[in-house]
């Protein structure tokens, strides 16, 4: 076991392939950034539908949330990559294929929009109705009330929850290797096939992701907490 342990913790292979592995890691961050942006926008949209005054739109918002919040992200990635282009292709009568990166961003963006929608909605519903009525009484249009009165408070309130969801989203970006987006996990499997040394490579990947997620989460949480306290005080 000690020989295996030494092999597992041996950083030499990891270091040898650092250029390609780092390029892979960059893809995790690209996917994360694009999917996070999509998830925030779609999530806000779905949350606004869910607090809408028309019942049909509320239902549409609920449907969006329930479908995407309950869908496993791997299943969603596979469905978007292999089924959606075919359906769209049938609709427009042409063969269609998504590049893996696009599929990954759409799928993760949709899944996490379901989670973000619930966070947004909880935040929106925690704003006292009186504030909205006060805005109306001052003659503010609805959109201005949303941007000036509701959203600034919602963003502050949902911050801790949102940080958790960003962490989950970043962790979920590792599965995009399964549809051949060349992220860190993809490169690790490639190098493993070449070198036949899974121990140091998979251990290295696990430790790398752990270090990134742990450090980033701690830093962002501390920063978010400081900002919240400063703005509330």
């Amino acid at each position, binding site marked *: 076991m000690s020989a295996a342990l030494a092999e597992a913790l041996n950083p030499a292979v990891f270091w040898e392939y650092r250029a390609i592995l780092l390029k892979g890691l960059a893809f995790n961050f690209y996917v994360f950034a694009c999917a996070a942006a999509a998830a925030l926008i779609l999530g806000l949209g779905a949350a606004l539908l869910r607090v809408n005054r028309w019942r049909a739109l509320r239902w549409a918002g609920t449907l969006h949330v329930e479908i995407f919040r*309950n869908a*496993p992200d791997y299943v969603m990635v596979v469905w978007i990559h*292999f089924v959606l282009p075919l359906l769209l292709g049938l609709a427009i009568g042409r063969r269609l294929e998504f590049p893996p990166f696009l599929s990954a961003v759409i799928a993760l963006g949709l899944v996490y929009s379901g989670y973000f929608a619930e966070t947004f909605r909880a935040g929106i519903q925690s704003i006292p109705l009186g504030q909205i009525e006060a805005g109306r009484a001052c003659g503010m249009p609805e959109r201005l009330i949303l941007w000036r009165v509701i959203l600034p408070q919602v963003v502050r309130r949902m911050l801790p929850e949102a940080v958790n969801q960003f*962490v989950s989203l970043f*962790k979920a970006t590792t599965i995009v290797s399964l549809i051949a987006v060349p992220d860190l996990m993809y490169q690790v499997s490639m190098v493993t096939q070449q070198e036949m040394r899974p121990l140091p490579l998979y251990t290295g*990947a*696990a430790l790398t*992701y*752990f270090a990134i997620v742990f450090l980033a989460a701690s830093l962002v949480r501390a920063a978010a907490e400081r900002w919240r306290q400063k703005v509330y005080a």
Partner: protein
Amino acid sequence: MGNWERLVWNQRHLLLDGLVVTVEICLIAFAAAILGGLVLCLVRLYVRPLRQVAIALIEFFRATPIFVQLLWVNYVWPELFGWPGSFFTAGWVALALQSSGYLAETFRAGIEAVPRGQREAGLSAGMSHPLVFRRIVLPQVLLMVAPSLVNQFTVIVKSSTLVSVITVQDLMFQSQKIVNTWLDPIEILTATAAIYILVVFAVSALGKALADLLRRRYGLAAS
């Protein structure tokens, strides 16, 4: 509709076999995660010399992506520890590791929420420490964390789709096998996604109802 019948309905035995494996691996992983989470949490709280080790393990399990853990357990552990010997075991171990980290923190929050006075009352009535924990602390903690347990179980079900990657023959694996046989993914993958969404939806709705029922019945207000 011909494809739905041919690719989904006529393959229902395969899909059902897969679903059974999914249910099995999720239940085993959930039980192991509760046990592991409880042990990690108790070590962190009450075993001074091992406290830092428990914290390190909890943080490692929580911060590492499940897919990475799965491959790590599957490829590295057999050489390192000579175990697990099968893909199925590797699958539930990885699922359990991740969740045990989260549950350890959930349990800790629950234990710390039980007022100190109750524990002291138990001790001064002559109950031993383990008895106080078993009879006074644990029942309240379990009621308190019931909704989080349900939530963690849905996370396990969702993550369990990944064990198909290490050839555990769960629902996702069978569905992809059908795709590879017939080369027509639309119906079968849509059906698979729908099954997963319905299962996760049902688990979280039923679980929440059950948690609320237990909490009301044993004197904790519903969430």
